[in-house]
């Protein structure tokens, strides 16, 4: 799983799909996760990075990440492997 090649992410949380012209906004954690996805990291590596940085257990992360992933899928912002 990786962010689509046409997805531009700004540090302010503005996300633009340059292929469709659709734009979105996300919070700082969303930006962080999108950038990690852009680096093509595995879910485990993303979980590790986030859990090291923030006080969150794996189960909570996994649930929230899954919701976020569904949203990204719905808006065609990530590519399946």
């Amino acid at each position, binding site marked *: 799983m990786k962010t689509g090649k*046409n997805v*531009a992410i700004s540090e302010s949380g503005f996300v*633009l799909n*340059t*292929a*469709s*012209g*659709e734009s979105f906004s996300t919070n700082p954690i969303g930006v962080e996760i999108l950038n990690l996805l852009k680096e093509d990291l595995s879910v485990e590596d993303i979980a590790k990075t986030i859990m090291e940085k923030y006080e969150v257990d794996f189960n909570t992360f996994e649930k929230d990440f899954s919701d976020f992933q569904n949203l990204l899928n719905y808006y065609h912002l990530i590519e399946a492997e």
Partner: protein
Amino acid sequence: MKKQLVIGVTGLNAIDSPGPGIAVIRGLRDSQAFDCRIIGLSYESLEPGIYMHDIVDKTYQIPYPSAGARVLYERIKYINDIEHMDVIIPNFDAELYSFMRLEQELEGLGIKMLLPTAEQFEERHKYNLPEFGTKYGIDVPYSKSIFSSAEIYGLHHEFSYPLVVKGKYYDASIATNADQAINYFNKISSKWGLPIIIQEHISGTEYNLAGLGDGKGNLIAAIPMRKQYITDKGKAWGGISIDDQEMIEMAQNFVKKTKWKGGFELELMKSNDGKYYLLEINPRMPAWIYLSVGCGQNIPEGVALLALGEKMEPYTDYKVGKMFVRYAWDMIVDVEEYQKIATFGEL
């Protein structure tokens, strides 16, 4: 030193459903290849471009297309005796036919134009779209021309509601039942005449592409755009250039197969399953054409240069993520100016 051109431009009605003239002129004025004097050609006395003196140098009224090509020729000849125009860029669908008929004669006056052929103009017409799609292998929504509102009650054999009721040149409304369709039929046909086109409604997202064909099958320029802000008349009030290779390939295919000559706009609908349908081909530049200049492809300049017979290499790149946001602006105009254009047909 840049060459000096005198260019006549129509479509000065920069209103809520704007003609492309003002955007075209802005592109011409940004040209790196030439400087220009702009002669506005207007139909009505309150077309805003008439009063925009930093955009239009001088305006002359010209007769409506219904007056016929001969009357138009006489008026253009009169204007040309004074202004010595090099190029005319017509920007209305409804006037194109008259200008196409006069192409040879105007060339005799030294005026060049870049227009599609009569055959190209006809076959891409809304009422010929199904045949056009079949001929060139392009997906189009199913549509049918009708000449009487009485035909509407029989449409349920071929269409399901909602369906789109479209005018010959402009206007389109979505009807959810036969009574609504009849209402739209009457409203649109009283304005634009017959036939009325009934089109299958495709739900999805609307995309547009502004392009330029050189008449030899080469796509010289193409900018795909997504409408971001749409007015109640369906016009883009804001849009963004996008990176969509599929749309560009559609434009290349269209220009290559038809050998389209001139500016054009493809109106496309991307259905919810990601398939593009061609809704319309407008045989001229769209009102949002200045976005092409912002993206690095000056299509109005290209139209003028190709009209003059200059060879142009196709643009290979454009800026993605450039936006246009339209705005309304009230000009303060002295009544003397209005009086001049209304009485003498010149300002």
